[in-house]
């Protein structure tokens, strides 16, 4: 069964408290070469049947309308079995 992967990140200009907490932890461990951490989400969607244009169109719509909230997040990548299906995501 094919797998579609959708990756969502908090918008670059936004405070990412989760990432900040991890970055602070790295600093406490003395790993000062790592200066920033941002945490996003990865959705792995399994599909029953082949992934055609209609499936991709539906996933792109879901990625924007449900998997992410455009006020605070960006869809940064969509791949099908490892192959990029990006098309004007931003």
């Amino acid at each position, binding site marked *: 069964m094919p797998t579609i992967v959708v990756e969502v990140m908090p918008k670059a200009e936004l405070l990412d408290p989760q990432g900040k907490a991890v970055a602070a932890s790295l600093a406490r461990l003395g790993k000062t070469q790592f200066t920033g951490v941002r945490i996003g989400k990865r959705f792995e969607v399994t599909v029953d049947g082949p992934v055609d244009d209609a499936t991709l169109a539906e996933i792109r719509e879901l990625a924007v309308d*449900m998997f992410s909230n455009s006020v605070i997040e960006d869809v940064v990548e969509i791949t099908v079995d490892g192959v990029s299906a990006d098309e004007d995501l931003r």
Partner: protein
Amino acid sequence: MRVGVITFPGSLDDRDAQRAVRLAGATPVALWHGEHDLQGVDAIVLPGGFSYGDYLRAGAIASHAPIMAEVIDAANKGVPVLGICNGFQMLAEARLIPGAHTRNAHQQFIRRDQKLRVENTDTAWTNEYSAGAEIIIPLKNADGRYIADAETIKRVEGEGQVVFRYVDVNPNGSMNDIAGVSNERGNVVGLMPHPEHAVEAGFGPDTALAMSSGTDGLAIFTSAIRALAAV
């Protein structure tokens, strides 16, 4: 006057909201997320809690629940809709009000009796307050940080859509100390603190007068009754 309170899986304060509606003088109607039926109610409350575990984003999955199609339709027709805490997050996710919520800036869950200023008394849910009134109602959330882009903030501030503002303490890092927002028409209002927990003396926040005697939240519910009576 019949006010519907929608229960989602993970709603916590639906019964409290029903009680507030009753104490305000209206008839509470229990509605269910999985149905497409508002049972002809005159106003709608989306209660607090952690709908669907707040997985994905707070309020996000609930904003796609079956009954939300009818809620969005009713809101666009002018039916008063109030979103409290998780309900506020649902309204934002459903794009019924501008902006969004993220994790509190300090990363902690917070619960406190919170002072607010009522910034707009022309909405369906605030017309019983006097302009600039300061009220104290409980606040309890993890994802309460209200944010929007600079243009949206400018617009909601300019159009009077900021309905409540945090006073003294900004408990979660919300932009411009914004605690509650309305849609352009003023029939849809969302706020992070919980007015339904401050509607009956003996069960509300402490006041200078007596313990647990605060009832500052009741006027939110009586406002809707007044707005409906005026139609």
